[in-house]
């Protein structure tokens, strides 16, 4: 069945003409726009329409144990701000979407920007997602505050010169470093002849980062010849429900210490199953993040005496409530609102919203009108804000420009009889300057700058705290 040439050409030409017209029209409609900062209009200094706020945290799936409290922290901030009149009188209206795998999270983010037209975005707990979303935020020029997703590569490699993206909770390398320092101190590792270390981490950015930094600190402070890696396990994030084989291998390896960054559902599964195998009787566990979920979820069956990491950020009991009303009141309000205690994610998201508010208000004072997104940026860089965890400051210069910094914290797990769950006791507070690469330092970025900074500048055999 042959098509006659005439018909073919007719069809082709017709299609091309229509296509060309459409294309020209399209370029006209969506053509390049020059950046315009609109001059202030008299009488319209602050829009009266609500401010559209995007919220995207893992509230479903394996990460929900983490994402849900983070989400609640942001919601609490939004509700408090609205009750007090909003930001410069503008009400905050939030649009929420789920955070999942990088693909889906990115797609939802793009929809929030293009379809829901959000003005500002608060999101993300997974380190797989922040590097994926940041370029999109920069392309669309939407101010985005990451509560977590703290991977070093974000501002060291993916977006080394960020404009619109900021991140609030401590950088990931701080996690591993803090946990390792805590382990050395609490388990007296410096006294031991040999330390056999087993590792189990989720197979993605966060897990690898934890592994690298725990190792580099162990090797630096204890000495390379004293540290031996006897096992490494890399389960897929939220992809394993039966940790039996891993637990057995760890026990068989004869490890003294188990270093882990398994979190949320993975950690709950692991520790419960590990209890059944008697793991905690044979091995001391160093976790970067075990107590970072909603505090009551770390049940009274959790063994005492393990390093109880909180993502090096915040645990609701510290700073102690008696001496620090800001934390006391935050915890109280959060508990009244949600019926549970806040996590470091809650605090981070909470502070991120207030940080934005404070920057917008200061920009308004300088400009006399509601600021465009790019005008808020200078009021965020180098800014500090007092939060329930203490002081948070946003770095203005590389490395890790736009990263938030606060002092790091870890401790020992202990079941509190009054509260009925395992808490972080004997807090070890470390000034953040001791555990992370400082502003202005230059060096290789592989695997992270903090890693290389430790290798280059820390003294062998010395515990720097």
């Amino acid at each position: 069945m042959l098509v006659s040439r005439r018909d073919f050409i007719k069809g082709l030409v017709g299609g091309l003409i229509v296509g060309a017209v459409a294309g020209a029209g399209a370029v006209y409609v969506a053509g390049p726009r020059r950046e315009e900062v609109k001059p202030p209009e008299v009488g319209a200094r602050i829009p009266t329409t609500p401010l559209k706020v995007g919220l995207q945290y893992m509230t479903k799936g394996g990460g929900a144990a983490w994402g849900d409290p983070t989400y609640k922290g942001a919601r609490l901030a939004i509700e408090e701000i609205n009750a007090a009149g909003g930001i410069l009188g503008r009400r905050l209206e939030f649009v929420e979407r789920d955070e999942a795998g990088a693909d889906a999270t990115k797609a939802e983010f793009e929809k929030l920007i293009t379809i829901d037209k959000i003005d500002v975005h608060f999101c993300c707990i997974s380190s797989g997602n922040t590097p994926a979303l940041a370029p999109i935020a920069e392309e669309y020029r939407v101010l985005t505050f990451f509560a977590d997703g703290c991977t070093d590569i974000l501002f060291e490699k993916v977006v080394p010169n960020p404009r619109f993206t900021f991140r609030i909770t401590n950088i990931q390398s701080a996690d591993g470093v803090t946990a390792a320092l805590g382990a050395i101190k609490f388990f007296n590792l410096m006294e031991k002849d040999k330390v056999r270390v087993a590792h189990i981490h989720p197979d993605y950015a966060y897990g690898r980062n934890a592994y690298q930094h725990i190792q580099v600190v162990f090797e630096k402070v204890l000495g390379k010849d004293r540290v031996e890696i006897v096992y490494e396990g890399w389960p897929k994030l939220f992809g394993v429900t039966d940790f039996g084989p891993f637990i057995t291998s760890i026990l068989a390896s004869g490890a003294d210490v188990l270093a882990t960054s398994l979190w949320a559902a993975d950690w709950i599964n692991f520790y419960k199953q590990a209890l059944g195998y008697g793991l905690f009787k044979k091995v001391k566990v160093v976790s970067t993040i075990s107590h970072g979920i909603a505090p009551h979820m770390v049940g009274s069956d959790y063994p005492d005496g393990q390093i109880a990491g909180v993502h090096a950020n915040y645990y609701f009991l510290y700073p102690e409530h008696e001496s620090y009303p800001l934390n006391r009141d935050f915890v109280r309000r959060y508990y009244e609102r949600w019926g549970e205690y806040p996590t470091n994610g809650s605090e981070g998201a909470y502070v991120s919203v207030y940080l934005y508010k404070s920057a917008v208000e200061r920009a308004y004072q300088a400009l006399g009108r509601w600021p465009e997104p790019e005008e808020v940026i200078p009021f965020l860089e180098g800014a500090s804000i007092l939060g329930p965890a203490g002081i948070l400051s946003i770095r203005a210069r590389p490395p890790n420009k736009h990263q938030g910094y606060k002092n790091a914290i870890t401790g020992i797990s202990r079941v509190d009889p009054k509260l009925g769950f395992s808490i972080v006791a004997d807090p070890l507070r470390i000034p953040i300057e001791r555990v992370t690469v400082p502003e202005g330092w230059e060096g290789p970025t592989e695997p992270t700058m903090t890693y290389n900074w430790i290798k280059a500048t820390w003294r062998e055999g010395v515990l720097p705290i």
Partner: protein
Amino acid sequence: MALPIYVLDTLFYSSLLFLIIAGLNLIYGILRVVNLAHASLFTFGAYATAWITTSLIVPRLGENLLALMVLPLVLAVILVILVSLALVTPLLRYSQGRGDAFQLIVTFGLLIIFEDLFKLIWGPHPVSAYNLFFQMGFIDIAGLRYPVYKFYVILLTAILALALWYVTYRTAFGLVLRASSMDPHMATALGLNTSRFLVIVIVLASALAGLGGALYIPVASVQLGVSTEFLVIAFVGMVIGGLGSFIGAVVGSLIVSSLRTLTLIVFPELELVVLYLVAVIVLLWKPEGIGGGRGW
């Protein structure tokens, strides 16, 4: 040093796989339908058991060992059978004879429906019920602790496999099973492949899968995505063992489980890859499978 533990773990995992693959093979052998949603019944069994244990059994009967062993299992399997009759059976019967593409797509649709049903009913958080696991305690093997519960599962499944063997080779029903799977047309002509018979087959297969889930939950937790995790491995086992064959289910589950344990010890990075590679190799070398032959 840890060898006995690895062997036991292999047997444990292969027990679960056997329960899934046996069902898959029953359905494929007798109805010639590929059921991508089969592992979803495994997951449903796990969810149901967890829920029954924590909401119904423990509040009323405490941590009574016998109650924990028997009741959640039985109730969960009944639930799975009901769900299968309602959702799965009609679809599988309709898919019969409509071609591979139809079956694959329709059961794929069913698979994702189940995933969301789990989310709807039990929420997105992982669900667990470790009670029985802890109740049964552990014994020492080669200096390492091993849960008694896993022994129990291995034993129970072995008995079940024997029972299934007995039914297949020593009963009239088993004769019909074998005949139907070897030559469905002839079986229909002889009046054997009745509607009722086929429904019984599907129910049996579903019950086995649900039982697998019920046995799985005390040692682990169940969450979204478990279905696909087990489905793909079960498929590999099905292919390696032999499509539609009872012996194939036994052989396939053992081989796949052993491979998995081996790769986990030696080269954990490639755990996933090795399984599929072996499946491809077996498909090339002996497409009817290592254990299988003709039908059930």
